[in-house]
């Protein structure tokens, strides 16, 4: 049963990953990534880490992918040009990927970790459930937890600053002066700090 689940989830994860790389339309790529993330959540459950699996489904396949879907719908799915800037890139890039996989496999085989060939030690019933992870996060890993929350806040502020501007710097200056300010205000000169950031 476990092996059937593992191979089903592994095939789903691999198929989703190949779909992300191969799909022409970015929208289908996002959908393939959702399949990939759900398969990974199944793999996390097989590794007895229930909380990480739940966070994977809720945070990744839920929230982050909705963000991707909105941005792809906003930007539109433009077709990529077939023009190759680097000659032979289409052949060299898969070669690099295969070489990376071979290198990682050699690292795994040569790591001489004997426990790799086992199923891992027997663990208690509460291994990886929300209570255990919550205890760890709020006691031993409190400072990384708070650092992660500050990082999330900074990312939110950064996204608002990056994407919240109504105009670019050049357009914003001319646009605001033609709309709002009278000619005498333009002769005084529009303050620099007011134009792009103030309108955001």
């Amino acid at each position: 049963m476990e092996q059937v689940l593992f191979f089903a989830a592994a095939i789903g994860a691999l198929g989703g990953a190949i779909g992300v790389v191969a799909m022409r339309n970015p929208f289908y790529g996002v959908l393939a990534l959702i399949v990939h993330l759900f398969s990974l959540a199944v793999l996390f459950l097989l590794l007895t880490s229930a909380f990480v699996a739940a966070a994977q489904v809720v945070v990744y396949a839920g929230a982050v992918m909705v963000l991707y879907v909105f941005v792809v719908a906003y930007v539109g799915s433009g077709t990529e040009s077939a023009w190759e800037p680097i000659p032979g890139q289409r052949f060299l890039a898969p070669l690099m990927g295969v070489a990376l996989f071979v290198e990682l496999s050699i690292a795994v085989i040569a790591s001489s970790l004997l426990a790799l060939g086992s199923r891992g030690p027997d663990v208690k019933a509460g291994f990886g459930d929300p209570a255990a992870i919550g205890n760890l996060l709020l006691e031993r890993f409190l400072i990384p937890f708070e650092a992660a929350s500050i990082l999330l806040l900074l990312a939110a502020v950064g996204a608002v600053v990056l994407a919240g501007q109504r105009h670019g710097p050049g357009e914003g200056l001319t646009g605001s002066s033609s709309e709002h300010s009278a000619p005498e205000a333009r002769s005084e000169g529009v303050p620099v700090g007011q134009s792009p950031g103030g309108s955001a």
Partner: protein
Amino acid sequence: MNIEWYVVLSSLLFAIGAMGILIRRSPIVILLCLELMLNAGNLALVAFSRMVGNQDGQIFAIVVMVVAACEVVVGLGLIVAIFRRRLPLDIDELRELRG
């Protein structure tokens, strides 16, 4: 299943993601391939945490998820800003950083 299987699967997913970053040219798809690589790393972390019988690796995986969410937010904000300035969404056209 042995832990080996999970680690080999994770390295395969990582290689596929790296290949996608090298092949594709649209910034959105490159962000998706970055997600692939981060998730491959997460799978390896959780597998090793199971191998050791210690939950610290799962905390590490959760922190990686937080960092990935931040990266997505900033990256998509950049893409929206690029799109609003009518610049082409193609990393070969965007190789100069100044607007």
